[in-house]
């Protein structure tokens, strides 16, 4: 019973939100003269041949991967009440520096990859650390400083790319860093499809998926099963209560931002190590901002974020076949937007409901011998 109700509570809000979002999107589509049923059919149609279908699954997972990492990075901050909008800048800096270091060294396979990952995490952490230091020593809001650092990161990355880190020949249309050699790349996971007896398309499933799963599990353990995670969540729930019980609030800000930045540093790596092997002027941007939406959607838990990232990627994928079917692909944006809004609203409603339930419980618990006396008060709260 308690397990069921707990899971019910966890799933209720997002499920409700999804339904409400679909209802609103359906109404909008109806108003636009678009048949929502046809939109839905196109969205879930992954193609005719097995090879096409698997390709589409790979496309969704490859897109979900950076979104998951971005959501995770944002969520770590959220859990402590820190709004790290700087994920965008953190992963840009991390990716370009990791790409350059990766191209500059020659190491045996696993070490080379490990070095690139380590560099990316350290750079991401340091860039986020600036925000933490400003907040702890000068009281600068992390929202302001991280937004500003995004702009600085963008400019700095452009400077590095066109200046000292440039690896592409003079006159090439796309400016890029030097290519990471074979030993520093992570191969695809398409062997899995052979094992499962599915078609094996040319499109490769990013091997970084394994790293992301490990990172997701580690973050979950860290947040839910360690003293550090407890302090972090306690500070997020009530900073004053946490510091009254001996949590070093300033230290927690620094540690949380470093951790958030380290995870943010990984966002660009699925693409970097699995497909492009270089950072270039056309590298996917904006993932840090999408991470905010994904974290909200996933309610800041690693498993929820993974689901949210896949949902987001699934919706994103649909924009191409929708256009091909002469349907407006903007419905994807509408659905994504309404889902996030609905989740935020649903979370708030769920939070209030559970708080009221808790209040009712705490009022009733001490007065167990005389329940009838407390009855009116409890009703007052709920009404």
């Amino acid at each position, binding site marked *: 019973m308690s397990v069921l109700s707990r899971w019910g509570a966890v*799933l209720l809000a997002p*499920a409700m939100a*999804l*339904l409400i979002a*679909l*209802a609103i999107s*359906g*109404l909008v*589509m*109806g108003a636009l*003269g*678009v*048949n*929502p*049923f*046809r*939109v*839905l059919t196109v969205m879930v149609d992954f*193609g005719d041949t097995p090879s*096409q279908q698997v*390709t589409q699954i790979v*496309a969704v997972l490859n*897109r979900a991967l950076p979104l998951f990492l971005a959501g995770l990075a944002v969520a770590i901050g959220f859990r402590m009440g820190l709004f790290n909008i700087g994920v965008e800048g953190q992963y840009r800096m991390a990716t370009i520096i990791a790409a350059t270091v990766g191209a500059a060294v020659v190491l045996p396979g696993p070490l080379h990859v490990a070095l690139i990952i380590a560099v990316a995490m350290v750079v991401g952490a340091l860039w986020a650390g600036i925000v933490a230091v400003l907040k702890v020593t000068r009281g600068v809001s992390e929202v302001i400083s991280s937004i500003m650092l995004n702009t600085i990161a*963008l*400019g700095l*990355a*452009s*400077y590095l*790319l*066109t200046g000292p880190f440039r690896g592409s020949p*003079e*006159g*090439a*249309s*796309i*400016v890029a860093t030097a290519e990471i050699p074979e030993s520093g790349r992570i191969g695809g996971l398409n062997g899995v499809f052979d094992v499962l007896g599915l078609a094996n398309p*040319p*499109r490769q499933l990013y091997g970084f998926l394994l790293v992301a799963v490990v990172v997701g599990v580690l973050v979950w353990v860290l947040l839910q099963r360690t003293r550090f995670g407890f302090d972090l969540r306690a500070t997020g729930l009530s900073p004053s209560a946490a510091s009254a019980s001996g949590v070093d609030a300033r230290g927690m800000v620094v540690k949380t931002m470093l951790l958030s930045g380290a995870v943010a540093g990984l966002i660009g790596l699925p693409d970097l190590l699995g497909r*492009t092997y270089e950072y*270039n*002027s*056309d590298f*996917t*941007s*904006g*993932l840090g901002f*999408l991470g905010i939406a994904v974290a909200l959607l996933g309610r800041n838990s690693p498993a929820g974020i993974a689901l949210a990232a896949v949902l987001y990627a699934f919706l*994103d*994928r649909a*924009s*191409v*076949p929708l*256009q*091909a*079917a*002469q*349907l407006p*692909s903007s419905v994807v944006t509408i659905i994504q937007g309404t889902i996030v809004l609905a989740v935020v609203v649903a979370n708030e409603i769920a939070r209030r409901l559970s708080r009221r339930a808790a209040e009712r419980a705490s009022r009733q618990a001490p007065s167990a011998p005389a329940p009838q006396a407390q009855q009116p008060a409890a009703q007052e709260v709920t009404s």
Partner: protein
Amino acid sequence: MKAAALLLAGSLALAACASDEPEAGGGSAGTSAEGGGELQVGIAYDTGGRGDKSFNDSAYAGASAAVEELGGTVTDLTPNADASNRVDLLTQLADDGSNPVIGVGFAFADAIAEVAPQYPETTFAIVDSSVADAGLDNVTGLLFAANEGSFLGGVAAALKSQTNHIGFVGGVESPLIQEFEAGYVAGAQAAKPGIQVDVQYISPAGDFSGFSDPAKGYTLAQGMYQGGADIVYHAAGASGQGVFRAAAEAGGQAIGVDSDQYETIGDPALQAVIMTSVLKRVDNAIQQFITDYSEGNVTGGEDRVADLESEGVGLSTSGGKIDDISAQLDTFEQQIVGGEIEVPTTP
């Protein structure tokens, strides 16, 4: 599991309810299978998609002109906001049987290199990117000698300048835009040796905001006009609006880019300052490519350069503001076509 099932059921029910009314509106489109053997052109746009009044619209114009003449359909797809799905666009078009498939913009280079080998029966083309060394024998590169067009722009600016001082505002300091700068400066120097040319870029390579930042374009151009320049050429996409605004305020002139901006600007105050535009006929190149494809004249694995000679680049004359120097412009054009003048591609 239960929740998922419930969810699915709910969404299906919901969709079913809502689908009652707009049946007619939604159902009509999409079934574009008009017999086999017909030309089915696929276009994947650069970010911005159709309606950008520039590059993408020009590509669409070329494709629809070709289809109008030859019969068939055009399927056009726009990438998502961060353009991370370029490969998906090309895959979708090729899977749907579109042939030829055209990627608009050099950013498609990697995506085409990945997709083209998977569809050896499909003919691909990419605008603004060379495929000569890529080893892809079903891809054609559609290139433009932007430096040659810009050279004539530089000649016109130099001849028309009263102050012997002109300017250039580039969108993003990338090799592609530097080609415009190189041609422009060379043209100005050829027409009037010693002329002063201010060169500024809105954003560095890697930061594409320079193509969509009219405010910054305005500031840079304003600085040039205040510094004594009287004609400014922009190769900055939508940021060019700011350059025109600065020209209108300063009483100067400006040169547009890519399409005939005198015709497309739609604002009389700004139209008045557009002396000419350096044209890049993406529409012509694409129409020609599709026509050649339908006639079986596409070899693949090679580049086609649209230049002054093939009228793929050139100056627009709407507004009649450069009619008085048309003789000199023609002379320079002949010299470029004849090979007497070699226009540089890098500044």
